[in-house]
């Protein structure tokens, strides 16, 4: 028999084992290629969507998250493939032993089985890559047709090619180790299942003596096959980690970023000002979700100033909880060097340069602000006119160590006390005291008023009363519901996170496929024993119970490990100052439980199919 005829004939003869191995491996490759392509398309899509938008602070939350997800997708794919390759070749070890026992030289034995691995790996990787690409294109088209996927970026051919090459090499590298071990082992050892599945020694682990024998059988099988069990638990843990980071992290990050936006813009707030000024303020708010507008506007035009009598009338309206009067101008601001203690130089050293740029400068009364920004540092203190708080994008663009530096406005240097996350003008904003700004610009009063309403008040009614008030005095004054801008900003943040939430769904499907592959291979290995049990009088559901017990143990162990690590990673590293409400916790728990149920249900599929097989088919040796 020729060197290639044997492996090919052997593969064809063992149709069940071969097709199972190819299908498991192909499904792993397909799901990983799919996830990679989907994540790439989503990542590229999001990147193109947020170009010129999204403040620096929001980007800081968003990009590490997406990067980590991509890394986890790649790692879990690699682990899933390595696991399948290991199981596939471990099952051939007995054949290696048989050939050696028959006198076949080591080199030839290795050659035969390496050729088998080569054929299986090549077919599975080609099949898997094609399936992954087709599935991703189909899925993106489908999502596009439902309007759920806002990204229409094209993906290059190199990702699938690179994935194919990497997975093919990886499969060979990992699958070859059991073959090498078996070809070097004594024939008696290679022939023994005790050797190739690591059963040489009885495990110290004991099952409770009162446990049912089905449970004992399930647990001992897992413990004895510890090599394969550890691999599948590791593999699934990674997937659950990915799912948790995507689900819990995604939901928490989404809630947190939405709360930042809401706190910065304010809810139940009406905007009052001259019609052009109100429109310009809306434009500044929309920079966050629509990008830079670069329109020329003369903020300091005296006609925009609001009179004290108007402001007094506004604050006296019943249901108005607060009045935040602001003077909004555009100014050239300058970075002023600061000094910090250098840990390496052991002395004071200067930080920063003399960068300058245009920024929206907002004069506010520190006691009246309706916004509650997420701030690194602290907000302006009452009565202090030498302080400034800069927006996150301005901080990133002009400052090195903003909290140790000053900002120059109109030749006056102000201490930077905080950096705030602010959607206004996409974070290119500076907050100073109102009196300071009035002083340096020569203006006599604010040009915008934010009217904070009592949560219990009827907004429509107050809106109407303010409109009436404005029409009585100056017809060019306007009231505008700022919740419209808040809603658009929140929708934009939501649209960034929602595609990411599809990743855990697909990761779960990929993990389920891996688990199905593992269970199928595991059943195939225990097939005859299950047949014997049925022949002795056990009903098919008794076998199902044993297989499902094994799956449940694996899934629960992986779930506990993966979700715990995922939550730690999310809360400690990914999302600073996370907002975790009871609803978020319930939502996360539901998602994760659905994930657990889906994975477990998927593992039941091969067991159910097996339980329905005719008894004689299961009892005979393959």
């Amino acid at each position, binding site marked *: 028999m020729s060197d290639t005829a044997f492996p090919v004939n052997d593969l064809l003869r063992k149709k069940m084992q071969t097709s199972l191995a190819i299908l498991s491996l192909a499904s792993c490759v397909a799901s990983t290629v799919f996830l990679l392509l989907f994540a790439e398309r989503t990542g590229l899509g999001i990147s193109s969507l947020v170009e010129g938008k999204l403040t620096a602070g929001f980007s800081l939350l968003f990009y590490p998250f997406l990067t980590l997800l991509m890394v986890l997708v790649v790692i879990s794919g690699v682990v899933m493939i390595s696991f399948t390759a290991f199981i596939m070749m471990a099952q051939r070890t007995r054949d290696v032993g048989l050939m050696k026992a028959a006198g076949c030289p080591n080199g030839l034995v290795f050659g035969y089985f390496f050729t088998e691995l080569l054929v299986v790996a090549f077919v599975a990787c080609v099949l898997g890559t094609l399936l992954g690409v087709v599935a991703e294109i189909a899925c993106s088209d489908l999502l596009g047709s439902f309007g759920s996927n806002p990204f229409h970026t094209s993906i290059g051919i190199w990702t699938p090619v690179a994935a194919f090459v990497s997975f093919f090499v990886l499969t060979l590298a990992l699958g070859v180790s059991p073959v090498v071990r078996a070809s070097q082992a004594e024939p008696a050892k290679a022939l*023994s*299942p*005790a050797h190739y599945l690591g*059963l040489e020694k*009885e495990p110290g682990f004991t099952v409770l003596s*009162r446990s*049912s*024998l*089905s449970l*004992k*059988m399930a647990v*001992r*099988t897992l413990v*004895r096959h510890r090599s394969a069990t550890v691999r599948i638990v590791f593999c699934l843990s990674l997937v659950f980690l990915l799912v948790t980071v995507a689900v819990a992290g995604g939901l928490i990050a989404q809630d947190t970023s939405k709360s930042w936006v809401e706190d910065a813009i304010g809810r139940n707030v009406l905007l009052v000002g001259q019609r052009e000024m109100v429109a310009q303020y809306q434009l500044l708010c929309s920079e966050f979700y629509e990008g830079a507008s670069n329109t020329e506007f003369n903020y300091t035009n005296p006609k925009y100033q609001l009179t004290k009598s108007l402001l007094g009338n506004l604050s006296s309206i019943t249901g108005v909880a607060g009045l935040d009067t602001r003077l909004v101008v555009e100014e050239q601001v300058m970075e002023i060097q600061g000094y910090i203690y250098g840990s390496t130089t052991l002395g004071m050293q200067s930080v920063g340069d003399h960068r300058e740029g245009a920024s929206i400068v907002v004069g506010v009364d520190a006691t009246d602000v309706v916004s509650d920004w997420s701030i690194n540092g602290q907000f302006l203190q009452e009565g202090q006119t030498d302080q400034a708080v800069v927006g996150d994008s301005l901080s990133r663009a002009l400052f090195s160590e903003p909290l140790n530096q000053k900002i120059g406005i109109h030749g006056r240097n102000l201490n930077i006390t905080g950096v705030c996350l602010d959607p206004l003008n996409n974070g290119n904003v500076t907050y100073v005291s109102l009196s300071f700004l009035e002083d340096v610009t020569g203006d006599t009063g604010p040009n915008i008023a934010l009217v904070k309403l009592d949560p219990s008040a009827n907004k429509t009614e107050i809106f109407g009363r303010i409109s009436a008030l404005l029409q009585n005095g100056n017809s060019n004054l306007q009231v505008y519901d700022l919740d419209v801008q808040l809603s658009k900003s929140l929708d934009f943040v939501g649209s960034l996170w929602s595609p990411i939430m599809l990743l855990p769904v697909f990761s779960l499907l990929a993990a389920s496929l891996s688990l199905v592959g593992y269970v199928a291979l595991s059943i195939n290995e225990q097939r*005859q*024993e299950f047949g*014997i*049990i*049925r*022949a*002795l*009088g*056990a*009903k*098919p559901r*008794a076998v199902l119970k044993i297989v499902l017990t094994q799956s449940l143990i694996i899934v629960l162990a992986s779930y506990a490990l993966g979700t715990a690590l995922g939550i730690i990673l999310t809360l400690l590293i990914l999302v600073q100052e996370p907002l975790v409400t009871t609803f978020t916790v319930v939502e996360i728990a539901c998602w994760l439980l659905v994930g657990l149920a889906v994975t477990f249900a998927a593992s039941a599929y091969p067991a159910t199919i097996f339980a329905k097989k*005719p*008894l*004689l088919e299961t*009892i005979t040796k393959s």
Partner: protein
Amino acid sequence: MTEKEVAVLVSSLDKTYEGVGFKVQVLIDVNLEVSKGEFVAISGSSGSGKTTLLNIIGGIDKPTHGKVVVFNEDLGTRDEDFLAGFRCKNLGFVFQSYNLISTLTVAENIAFPMEWTGKNGKQIAERVEELLSLVDLTHRAGHFPFQLSGGEQQRVALARAIANDPPLLLIDEPTGNLDLKTSLKVTQILETMKNRGKTIIVATHDPHVIELAHRKQILEEGRLTVVNE
């Protein structure tokens, strides 16, 4: 003279295996009647269909044509759930290659079929002890199958087959792979079972086992012939 009750009735049984490009007729018009308490030995060359016949009588395989009635149940018409329960209650099967569960100890292998009958732990433990003593393997109770010799595994398989005290034993080549001394030990156990009034159908070439039988039949090229009554 009173007529003996029939335990197993096989009539006009055919079994054909078909696949792509092949068709093998394993059993041809087989007729067999075994009374309760009877010990029947079936011999025949390898591939003559002995194991297939035992599998069909045990409800593990289905006939292509013909009828198999065991304790008045027509097994060909029953579903898998019924057959499983029927085997558990009425049949003890000893396979040619022992087929012990590798993840269970000797004691657990013997106890396993009793778990499905609803016996409590104490009853099971007592029965296991009794059976271990019968097959002389009390000292091996905690060992796993791969730690046993072939003869010991065969004795465990026998103990497992009679764990639920079934009225019918189907035994496939019980001494085929064993040395003379171990064969004799297994034969003794079979004799004990015979003396306890079990109905036994055994596929064997072993003259010691055949000697125990009330009746010997030969299966040649799928056809069953009677040697002596």
